[in-house]
């Protein structure tokens, strides 16, 4: 049945592609509707803003794509992409081998280290020994969850998985967990907030593991959708070259978050 569906879907896909290329196509960009500052935050009006939103707009403008932001919960993003609910994922999703079995990625558009934060009154570092007996919170199905399970699973007393990173931060403030591991920039934004300043500080950066953490964040596209991936790649190169990327980045960060120039996917 699966095979039959796959072949019909492929045939229909070709047919639809032939039809679709004639008109200006909408590209639905899936994202998870949750605050992830400074990449994503919601205005009171309901509009989304932040670094990644501006980058998406810049990429779409560069390739003249008619992009529509489509909210999908984080754990439904990849299924939504494969079932064609959306056409691309641009939601700070790291490029990993595990995900590449299901979907394709564009080149990376940013890469930042992974950090662990914890309450101020405790001192430990981001190593398996440091987290011994601690309760560690991570967001479900992120590279951080995978990393935590692989490296800290043996020593931490429990690894709790949250629907959003924000809820993990919340429980760190409430004291229900001892540490949370996530992207350093997202955590930095939290540490700079009033709440974060009062409770927690940086415990350190985790040891790199390219296999789990991947080479950086890229746009996810359906397997075989080389056309869209190519366009996004060209756009990323374009905005890197013409200064648009630097201009947006300057508004949010005091350094270039693109990471290592040579390390591309």
């Amino acid at each position: 049945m699966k095979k039959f569906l796959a072949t019909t879907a492929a045939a229909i896909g070709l047919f639809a592609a032939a039809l679709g290329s004639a008109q200006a196509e909408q590209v639905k960009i899936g994202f998870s509707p949750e605050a992830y500052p400074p990449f994503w935050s919601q205005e009171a009006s309901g509009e989304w803003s932040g670094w990644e939103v501006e980058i998406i707009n810049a990429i779409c403008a560069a390739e003249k794509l008619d992009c529509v932001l489509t909210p999908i919960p984080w754990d439904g993003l990849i299924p939504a992409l494969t079932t064609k609910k959306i056409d691309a994922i641009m939601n700070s999703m790291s490029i990993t081998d595990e995900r590449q079995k299901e979907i394709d990625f564009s080149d990376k558009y940013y890469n930042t280290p992974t950090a662990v934060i914890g309450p101020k009154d405790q001192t430990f570092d981001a190593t398996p020994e440091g987290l011994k007996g601690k309760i560690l919170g991570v967001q479900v199905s992120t590279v951080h969850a995978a990393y935590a399970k692989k490296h800290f699973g043996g020593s931490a007393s429990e690894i709790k998985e949250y629907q959003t990173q924000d809820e993990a931060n919340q429980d760190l403030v409430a004291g229900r967990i001892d540490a949370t591991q996530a992207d350093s920039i997202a955590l930095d934004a939290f540490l700079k907030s009033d709440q974060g300043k009062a409770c927690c500080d940086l415990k350190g950066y985790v040891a790199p593991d390219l296999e789990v953490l991947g080479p950086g964040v890229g746009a996810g596209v359906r397997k075989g959708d080389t056309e869209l991936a190519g366009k996004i790649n060209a756009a990323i190169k374009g905005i890197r070259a013409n200064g648009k990327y630097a201009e947006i980045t300057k508004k949010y960060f005091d350094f270039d978050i693109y990471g290592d120039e040579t390390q591309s996917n």
Partner: protein
Amino acid sequence: MLRGLLSSVQIALGAYGVGLLIGIGGAYGKLYGGPIVRDLLEVYTTIVRAVPELVLILILYFAGTDLINRVLEALGYARIDINGLVAGIWVLAVVQGAYSTEVLRGAILSIPQGQIEAARAYGMAPMLMLRRITLPAMLPFAIPGLANLWLIATKDTALLAIVGFNELTQETRTAAGQTKAYFTFFVAAGVLYLLLTLVSNRIIARIERWSRRGMPAVSGSAR
């Protein structure tokens, strides 16, 4: 948050309406349908009533829209874009439909059957009979159950937060995450839901009185 409330009410209304239609069809099928129709409906209501709404919503939300598009594509039509509102409405309607099937079936059964037989004896067409006799006659019996279903519908919209739909609970969650005032926002949302329920109760009481007009007063009819 008011925007969220609005879309919650919208979904609840839509789901309730479509659910009622499914319910009328289902109740008719269960009472007058052939054996296969009856069994299939039994399977439908049993499954929906035994499996958590959350699981059904996930299955229908992802599988349902995917299925529709595959069917459309197979028939040579272009994919239609099912937006969150429509998907949310139809997912909840399927759930509501199962419950209202049962409520309406019970209500139709409690109509004095002589009334229906009399209508048939007059040679009324089935649709006319449904509209003129069955529906109005069963209304007083069905309203307590249907009122309950409406309240369930308003609260079930909260479950759509899990699939990322921007209804009241989800809006509250984002707003709370943004401002860190979790307690305040959740309490406020609770008050909004409660208001919705209380207002609904008022309206339902009026409708019930209206539908019972001309009937002898029954005290303590609802359960």
